[in-house]
């Protein structure tokens, strides 16, 4: 059971890592608009193609 001394800090470190990645993902704007990407096919700019 001494393995807990390794596993518990490891799990905390992983949680912290996931939290940091979530933080970065949200604040870099990835979750700002979840629909635009799917609709982007409707907005392609046809002007430039003459």
């Amino acid at each position: 059971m001494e393995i807990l001394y390794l596993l518990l800090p490891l799990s905390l470190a992983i949680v912290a890592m996931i939290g940091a990645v979530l933080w970065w993902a949200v604040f870099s704007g990835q979750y700002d608009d979840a629909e635009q990407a799917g609709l982007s096919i409707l907005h392609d700019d046809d002007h430039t193609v003459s």
Partner: protein
Amino acid sequence: MKPRSSSSSQTAAHSQTAAYSQTAAYSQTAAFSQTAAHSQTASDPQTTAHAVGNQSVAQRRRGLVRLGLAWLAMMQVMMFALPGYLRPEAGGQDSLEVLDWAIFLMNWASLTLTIPVILYSAWPIWLGCARAWSARRITMDVPVGISLFAAFIPSVMATFKGAGEVYFDSITMFVAFLLTARYVEQRASLVDSVACTQNVPARVERPLSGVAPAQTSLAGLSMPLSTGALRQTSVPATGIPSGLRVSAPANMASVSLPLMAQANRVATLFVLIQLTVAAVIGAVWWVIAPTQAWSVLVSLLVMSCPCALSLAAPVSLAALQVNLALDAPLSTNQREALLERTVRITRQNLYGALAWHVLTMPMAAIGWVTPWLAALSMLLSSVAVLLNAWRLYRPRRAGLSRAVGVLTQNQHRRA
């Protein structure tokens, strides 16, 4: 769209980027900046609109991170709580010793994870408590803050002592569920407030027959599932699919304001009663069985959170807005029926949530409901309210696909 001048295409480009950078629910500001750009007013309101937009985007992102962190911590803390769940069934003295050692370690790990939840994720709750305190008013944050406090402090003490119950799992669960309900509520009431208080000048140059321009301003309102696409089409007046134009009911405010007021009254009264009942029952338990008193008190306090109550009015009003904004102009009869349905569903939500609380409270009072179960029940009632409001919105969902269809045609025509 041939006769568009270069300046108006610049406007379109500007509003397109606005549409891209704004999120769907924050379309209030996007719509505003579009309107400002369109009516070619001075750049001043435009910049303020941008400032407001940036602020609300940052707010939303922070809310999302708070929510995500709370859920993450909740899942991990629940795993750490497992030895604690097993302890009552532990066999011999030997295994009990090992288990207690494991519980001691796990409690420390849980505490490490709960501290950021309390300090960061629950920050809006503490702010709300401070506001309520300075205004000498009971709000929803008060019972939430009290229950978090009542659960957290004894848990920390138990962790340091290495003996006794900890409620870290309930705390993180409660915060995660509560923030989820709040997040939904904020998005819903935002959509709602756009519609109710919108005094943006009408963006439609050619009013529909029989509809005053002031009332068509709702057309710019987009919906929770709105897409930049819908907004974008409404930039050039000729590009607005007629299906998107809405005649706002003149009596919109007359429907929404009393409903909101009613919901607030019910929620405040409910919180007051719940707090009193929790205090009384907690005291009774303290006299009869002091070991369980704290758990009962915490679950009663968790249960006293009127999330579902506060969700009731905003979500159904938001659903009403979506209906009005999406669909083809409604006839008077249809509109009346829709408003009636909204009022009915809001009342159902309000009193259904109340009934749920009244039913579950005695169970918590007898000690059947553990704190984490109370948190779960809170979430379930909120979800039920959401689903009920969604009923209002579902029959007209077809409107969106029609709108997108019109949009694609428009794009072709423009090209």
